[in-house]
């Protein structure tokens, strides 16, 4: 038997009884980053496949949301900093071994491109909105057009982007994959937390992020073909996710003591119900069944599986951020 007690006071709330430095802002950001990565991945991929006009929502409309999503994510990140006024220090250097440094630079690049992408489609976006009777955003589209027609620099940037869109699509595709993987690698870089420190986390977060991206498109698109395709892709991604989850837990269980304890958080420990019922059950298996039924011809509103996947993806990030910090070496 061994008992370890503090002899001197060390009453630091974010260190004991376990590290609790990151909370919901980081979990939400990881979710938003994955979601943005997923949406951009589909937009660029289907653009490069020449499906620009077959899948207008995926390629042209959905990326409008990514800029907003990324900005919200960035605000959450800054909100979570303890030394906020020094945030610019991130951009004075590039630390090749720090996933957070990679992420900071990737986010800036992705946010610029994800703004330019919908700007370069402004005519199509306006047409799309008018076809659906949406005229409330006319002021914004008109403003962007004025910008493009009357100002030299925005005009040059937008025209260049439009001209070399294929080139930029390749860059954005690459960046969106980095963004999707990095949200997982960010956590797996911390070997002080055995639950995070497993190589499956990067692919798992990427798959989950792309899955939430496809759910997002499925939810908001009114094109039947697009919906059906996204629903099929989402089912495949959910299947991969389930496989990776089993893989992750088996890997942890085959590891040293602290890794077993990390797996036990999900196997009878504090997060068992959250993980298996809310995430795996309601966020993966149930939407998978609903999507399968829909493909078989049953009438199921596509918003239902889509929202379940999105909520499931968010719960998954929350679980990983909170449970990961509880998984520690003994002091």
């Amino acid at each position, binding site marked *: 038997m061994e008992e370890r007690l503090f002899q001197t006071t060390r009453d630091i709330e974010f260190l004991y009884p376990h590290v609790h430095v990151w909370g919901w802002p980081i979990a939400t950001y990881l979710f938003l980053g994955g979601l943005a990565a997923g949406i951009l991945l589909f937009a660029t991929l289907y653009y490069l496949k020449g499906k620009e006009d077959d899948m207008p929502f995926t390629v042209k409309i959905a990326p409008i949301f990514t800029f907003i999503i990324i900005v919200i994510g960035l605000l959450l990140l800054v909100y979570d900093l303890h030394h906020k006024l020094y945030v610019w220090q991130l951009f004075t250097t590039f630390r090749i071994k720090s996933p957070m440094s990679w992420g900071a630079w990737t986010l800036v690049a992705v946010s610029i491109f994800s703004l330019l992408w919908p700007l370069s489609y402004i005519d199509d976006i306006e047409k799309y909105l008018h076809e659906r009777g949406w005229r409330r955003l006319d002021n914004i589209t008109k403003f962007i057009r004025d910008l493009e027609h009357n100002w030299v620099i925005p005009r040059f940037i937008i025209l260049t982007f439009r001209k070399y869109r294929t080139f930029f699509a390749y860059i954005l595709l690459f960046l969106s994959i980095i963004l999707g993987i990095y949200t997982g690698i960010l956590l797996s870089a911390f070997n002080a937390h055995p639950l995070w420190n497993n190589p499956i986390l990067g692919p798992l977060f990427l798959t989950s992020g792309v899955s939430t991206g496809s759910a997002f498109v499925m939810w908001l698109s009114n094109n039947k073909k697009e919906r059906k395709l996204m629903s099929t892709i989402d089912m495949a991604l959910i299947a991969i996710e389930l496989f990776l989850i089993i893989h992750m837990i088996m890997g942890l269980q085959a590891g040293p003591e602290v890794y077993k304890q990390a797996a036990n958080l999900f196997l009878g420990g504090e997060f068992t119900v959250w993980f298996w019922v809310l995430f795996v059950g309601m966020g993966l298996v149930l939407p998978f069944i609903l999507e399968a039924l829909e493909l078989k011809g049953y009438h199921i509103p596509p918003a239902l599986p889509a929202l379940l996947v999105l909520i499931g993806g968010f719960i998954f990030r929350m679980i990983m951020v909170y449970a990961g910090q509880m998984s520690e070496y003994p*002091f």
Partner: protein
Amino acid sequence: MRYAMAIDVNKCVGCGDCVVACQTENNVPIGYSRDWIIEITKGKYPDLMMHFESQRCNHCEDTPCVRTCPTGASFIDEGGIVKVEHDECIGCGACIEACPYDARYFHPDGYVDKCTFCDHRVKEGLDPACVSVCPTYCMYFGDLDDPDSEISKLLNSREWYTLIPEAGTKPQIFYLK
């Protein structure tokens, strides 16, 4: 130059002088501490053994905190001392998450703070505050690169252990058995 510390757990009585000395010397904010003492009891009643560990930053050779720092605020200074440049720190918490020893904390002013091996004293040839006040002389501070230093001789002649070696950080605080 490779600074390290050896602590004789047979001599330590857990008085907490090292903790108070550090807080005073380094102006550590109230409620925080850069070093702390843990009481470890092993065995089964009535055969119990107890010893104390004065813990602090291990000034590791393989530093997960420096590796994960996105701005370079965490760095390894001369002699292997792991430090934080306050004006470069954004307070993201990555290094706190990365440290298996919980040796870092957010200073109330926002930046991350930690043990510096009292480098301002070391530069003047003095021992760190914790070492210099120890009433049982159980702590030794010195240069591992110098084979004639007291700490090198102790580590050669005595048995020792380090904390959480399985985390792969190569800690430089040695506990003499």
